[in-house]
């Protein structure tokens, strides 16, 4: 059987890729995708911990479903905001959203 640590490493990598994406990408849609990657990394963690540590209690599985639902709700709001910004400015590049700064 594949050891637990492999899953954790994949999950940590995925989280880091998402983190990097959020900090480095300039397109708001790509930033949203990066956030989704981070949330999915958490899901891998939850399911792996459930399978290896407490397979008798389904808590980890149930939480993964909660996280999926929340992620979908967040994506819905996020995409709506991005579309609204795009309609007004024809751009979703983060650096061009600079009306607000010191």
């Amino acid at each position, binding site marked *: 059987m594949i050891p637990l640590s492999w899953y954790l490493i994949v999950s940590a990598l995925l989280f880091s890729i998402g983190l990097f994406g959020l900090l480095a990408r300039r397109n708001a849609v790509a*930033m949203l995708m990066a956030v989704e990657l981070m949330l999915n990394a*958490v899901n891998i*963690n939850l399911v792996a911990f459930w399978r290896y540590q407490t397979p008798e209690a389904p808590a980890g599985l149930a939480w993964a479903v909660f996280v999926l639902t929340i992620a979908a709700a*967040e994506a819905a*709001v*996020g995409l709506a*905001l991005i579309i609204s910004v795009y309609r007004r400015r024809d751009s979703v590049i983060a650096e061009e*959203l600079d*009306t607000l700064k010191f």
Partner: protein
Amino acid sequence: MFAAPTLNLWVITPLIILTVWAIILMFIDLFIPAGKKQWTGWLTLVGLIPALALTLMQWGQTGGAFIAEGGQPMVVVDNFATFLNTLYLLTGILAVFISVSYIRDAGLERGEYYFLMLFSIVGMMLMGMANDLILIFLALELLSIPLYILSGFDTGSDTSEESALKYFLLGAFSSAFFLFGIALTYGATGTTSLPVILDTISLDDPLALAALGMLLVGFAFKVGAVPFHMWTPDVYEGAPTSVVAFMSIGAKVAGFAALMRVLGQGFPMWGELWQPAIVVISALTMIVGNFAAVRQQNIKRMLAYSGIANAGYILIGVAASATDPEAISASLYYMLAYLFTNIGAFAVVIAVEKLDGQKGLLVEDYKGLAKRHLLLSLALAYFMFSLVGIPLTGGFTAKFYVFGAGVTAGLYWLVVIGAITSVVSAFYYLRPVLYAFMYEGPAVARVSRGLMFVLVVAVFATLVFGIFPGPWYELASQATFGNVATFVAGG
């Protein structure tokens, strides 16, 4: 395979009332013609006031809801939760009074505003009542997602939607951190229930350490603590002012509620470990918040940095609670006093703001206000004195108690930083007051009846907290966490 959990629905009755009323209100709103949407606003109170009454009746009781067979409750009510729930509901009621005329004059009058606010209040209340990390995450999202929408509610303005997008991206980012922390806690202990974490976690587990760090990052984002404060000024400047007044108190207090419960009930034995982290965050937050506020020209941005600075003062009490659990009552009292002062300050900002194109928000726009609106200027001066922490105001007694808690816990240099930065804060807080009284200028204000009500309540409450802090502090000191055993017994 699964036994049905014990429900104990009375614990969450206020939440049920608010949720159900928000949903009913959605349908009622369909039948309210455009232009009369203030009725949706006033109807919001029909949900908020019974919820407040029930919450007050829950004072002194402890109990848990959704208890699995032989397990721990998911939701608890104790004095800590009841105290904070009262705060959110008061904020909500005052925010309705502020909003009704503001969103009409700003041309944003749509019914969604009010029930999004109700849902957000439910999320806030759940933050303080959750006894399980995963429920804290759900509450966090329930509180945040409506706020993302509300921040972008002014669809006619570039700044509003930009602030909403920034708030959304950084909020989702911090949620991911928080969630990763939860997953690691789950890995380290096999549970996310705070009392069980307390029993099973071991100090030498690197997984648990990483988990605690990630959770702290998530909370620091939510309360706007340095170095995770960058979103605050942008969001406060761009979002509609009435929304800012609401979330600058509600979202911040909710973040602190969950932070205090996680640290106080999940990880209390690690006090010596997280106390230094909180101390450093608190010191940085006070320094950066106050010094960055000095150079702000926009009053909403200035109040945003002021909010960051105040998060630092509240954190003194949290840091002190590592060695002395009683110290959180100082932070709770601080939040109570801050609620009224801050909402009063925002009410003045709304009165002066001109709604045609974001004018009247610069500090210079307050020049000559006292000539035409003496009482409003006096109220502004009083709130600003309270934020600085001058005696006879709620802000003074609040700072007095958190500094006292800091000294008792031996955090002398943190208290010294707090005192010095309070002096610095006088520079920027008193500038609009100075402009209002000392300069000639064209400043005008409109004070609607709702705004008048909020101003009177806020001045009165700040005065009461400034002169008779004793009984209120006594209440805050009774607002402690419930005993785990009484949750399961169902109080």
